[in-house]
Every structure is written in C-alpha cells, then in structure tokens.
C-alpha cells in the first residue's frame, strides 16, 4: 500500500473514531432521536416551527432539547421567553486539581423544553457574534460537545438558513442524525432555494424526512376566507418534484405573533387554533416517520448517561 493511500485510510479511521466516540458522540449519548430543521433561506419560520414542534412533542410526553445552531440570529431564547444566561456547570465534586471543565447545562424553559443557544451566552441580546470561518465551526462543535444534554427523547436542531459551512458542520458533527425537516413558504423564491437545500442534504447523506409549508394561507378571522398572502401554495408540488414526503401546511395566524412576543409556543397558548392542530399533526408524522414507539420511561430518564463518572445533570429555570 503506498503512503498516500495509507495516510488517507488513517485519516478516515480517525474521522470515524471522532464521529462515533469523540466528545460530541459522548455528549449526545443519552439523546435518542436527532432531527435538524432547515430551509434554504431565512425568514420562513424555522425557529417558530422548531419550538412549536418541540412543544407539541413535549405535550405527548417526550423529553425535548433544542439546540439553536444559528450563531448570528439566535432566536430560540427570545421565542421561549428565556432571559437567563448559559452558565458553566460546577460538578458536585468540584474542579479537579484546579482544572475547570467547560460544561454547560441546558436552560429549562417554563414549558419544559431544554434549550442551548449561543444567544444565551451574552447578557445583552444586542451583542453581535463576530466569529467567522473555522472559528465558528469549531465553536459550534465545542458547544455540542460541552453540553450536559442528559436523557432526551429528541434533540431538535434549529439550523441557520442556507447550506453553508455552519449547516454542513452541524449535519456532519451530529452522529446518527435521524433526518432533516425542511421548511418552505409558498413563494416561488422560497421553493426554488429549498430545492437546493434538499439536494445539499442528499449530497451530505442526511435523510430528508419531510417538507412543511409554513405561512401557507391566512384564514380571515371574520369570515374564514382563505387568503394566500404569499402566492398560491407551492410546497406540495415541490415535495412531489423532489420526491420528499409532504407533511402539510401551517397557516398564518394572528395568535402566532402574540405567542412569540410573550415567549409561549402557540400550541400551548392557543391549543385549539388551527395552527396548533397543524403542528400537532406534523409532530405525529415525525413520530411515525422515525418509528418512535413512545417516550422514555422515568426509569430510563433517570439513568446516568456516562460510564466514567456520575455527572450531575442540572437545569436552572428561568421565568419571565
């Protein structure tokens, strides 16, 4: 075997070892299903879809963690009314020999969702994150590996828009990624960009579980007439064209605006609204798609996630 081929094989072996046994794999050991939510462009409602899908699953008894991977526009904390900062966890045994370990615990929302967002690092939401290039990629991976995720049924990853380095880093760094959920809106430009995103996912060997059309129509609150504010719905046609399951339409709703402002998922604040029903149907489709048999039991949830030592998995609560 020549040297080049040998080094290439060695490199591949190291990559696979890192993927299956590295810090991120260990950190996510207790997480059963990992799903990323993405789109080709911004402004399609990925974050609201992520948190409402998470809330709908939580209502069914599932333990949910959300990783807000959008470093430049981290919106999950605001959308859930989380005001607190992400703090370093001090292990119960203290720091060993003066060495301090960089570990975080997710912030637990009032509604039972465990959240990690770089937006929770800084005291002010006006502070921009000026990381770029490889530094940004390393930081995403560092975050993923440094969190005490504990035992979760689902990790929902709210990806930044597009198919650039950050998206590829997350998709390539999460072992056993269950799949991607694609969000589009009715406009032609969104569906066009979304098709690129679906192709990118396929190139990266990430299964596309389903496609959702968000902000599909507005039902007039007075007479119920359906109004296509963003043009006639094209999501279902896109799904057919790309051979991806179409998981339905989420209508626009006046309830959504106030829910976001108050930091309460709409499925909790307005459970009977059509928009909430739509999210619950999508949650059901996700469970079916991944062949999920049910939430983990309390006994399973209480089991430690590491073999080496007992890590205290703590949450700190934030109330607004």
């Amino acid at each position, binding site marked *: 075997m020549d040297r080049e081929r040998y080094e290439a094989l060695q*490199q591949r072996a*190291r*990559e696979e070892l*890192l993927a299956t046994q*590295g*810090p991120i794999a260990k950190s996510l050991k207790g997480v059963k299903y990992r799903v990323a939510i993405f789109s080709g462009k911004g402004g399609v409602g990925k974050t609201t879809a992520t948190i409402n899908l998470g809330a709908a699953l939580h209502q069914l008894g599932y333990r949910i963690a959300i990783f807000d991977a959008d470093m430049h526009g981290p919106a999950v904390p605001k959308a859930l009314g989380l005001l607190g*900062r992400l*703090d*370093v966890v001090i292990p119960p045994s203290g*720091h060993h020999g*003066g*060495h*301090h*370990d*960089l*570990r975080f615990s997710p912030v637990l929302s009032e509604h039972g969702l465990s959240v990690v967002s770089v937006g929770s*690092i*800084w*005291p002010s939401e006006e502070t921009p994150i*000026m*990381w*770029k*290039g*490889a*530094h940004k*990629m*390393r*930081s995403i*991976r*560092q975050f993923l*590996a440094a969190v005490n995720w504990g035992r979760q049924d689902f990790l929902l990853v709210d990806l930044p828009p597009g198919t650039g380095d950050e998206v590829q880093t997350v998709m*390539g760094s999460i072992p056993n990624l269950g799949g991607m959920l694609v969000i589009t809106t009715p406009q032609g430009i969104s569906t066009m960009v979304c098709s690129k995103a679906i192709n990118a996912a396929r190139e990266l060997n990430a299964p596309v579980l389903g496609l959702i059309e968000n902000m599909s129509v507005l039902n007039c609150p007075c007479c119920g007439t359906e109004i296509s504010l963003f043009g006639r719905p094209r999501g279902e046609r896109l799904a057919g064209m790309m051979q991806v399951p179409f998981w339905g339409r989420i209508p626009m709703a006046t309830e959504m605006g106030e829910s976001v402002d108050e930091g309460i998922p709409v499925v909790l604040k307005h459970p009977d609204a059509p928009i909430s029903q739509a999210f619950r149907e999508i949650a059901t489709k996700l469970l079916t798609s991944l062949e999920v048999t049910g939430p983990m039991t309390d006994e399973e949830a209480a089991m430690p996630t590491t073999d080496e030592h007992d890590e205290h998995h703590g949450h700190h609560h934030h109330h607004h």
Partner: protein
Amino acid sequence: MNTMDITTTTTDTTQASHEELNRRVLTMATQVLELLRSFGREQITANELVATLPEIAARSTLAQHWERLTAEPALSPCFEVLQLLSSLESEADYQMLRYGPPSLHDDFRELSLAVARLRKAIQPVA
C-alpha cells in the same frame, strides 16, 4: 472611609483584576501564536500542535472565568481571545482532519487581530 472612597477602591480592585486576567490571556495567546507559527514553518507536526494546545489550558481558564467574561463588557476582548484559544484546543484536530492543515492560516490571522484588540484594552503598567 467615605462612600466615594469605597467606590473608587472597588473600581480599582476590579480594574486590577481585569488587568491580571487580560495579561494572563495575552500570554496564552502569544504562546499559541508561536505554536501556530512553528506549525506553519513545519518545525512541529500536527500531532505535536494538537498535543501542546491543551497544556496552555485555555479551555480551563475560560471555564474558570466564564461568569465574569460573559457579564463584563470590559472583558469582551479577553473573552474573544480566550474563546478562540479554547476552540482551537478542543477542535484543531478535527479541523485539520476535515479541512487540512492550511485551514489554520486563517486562525493565525484572526488570533493576531484579536490579540491586537486585547493589547489595546490592557492599560499600560505604571
């Protein structure tokens, strides 16, 4: 001692504490820049670089001072450098596997710029 004196004393103590941390991180950053320079000149191997970075203990320092670094705007330049160093300590190996050793050139440049900002934040020693 009146209230003004107490406030001034507290401010002086805080500034001295910031100064100490800033200088400590500056030293760490200088060491990493030297390591990256040596790596770029092929004076050390990738394995040697990856093995030496943890000895600088950037990650541990970041964890130790996390609360201050993320709460005090005056420490922003320090936090920026330390976070960069910490991410290198954690992920330089993966980065080189994935993107190749030349990908560290940009990090050298970015760290140099961050260090320049940190130097500006450090007050001259009286």
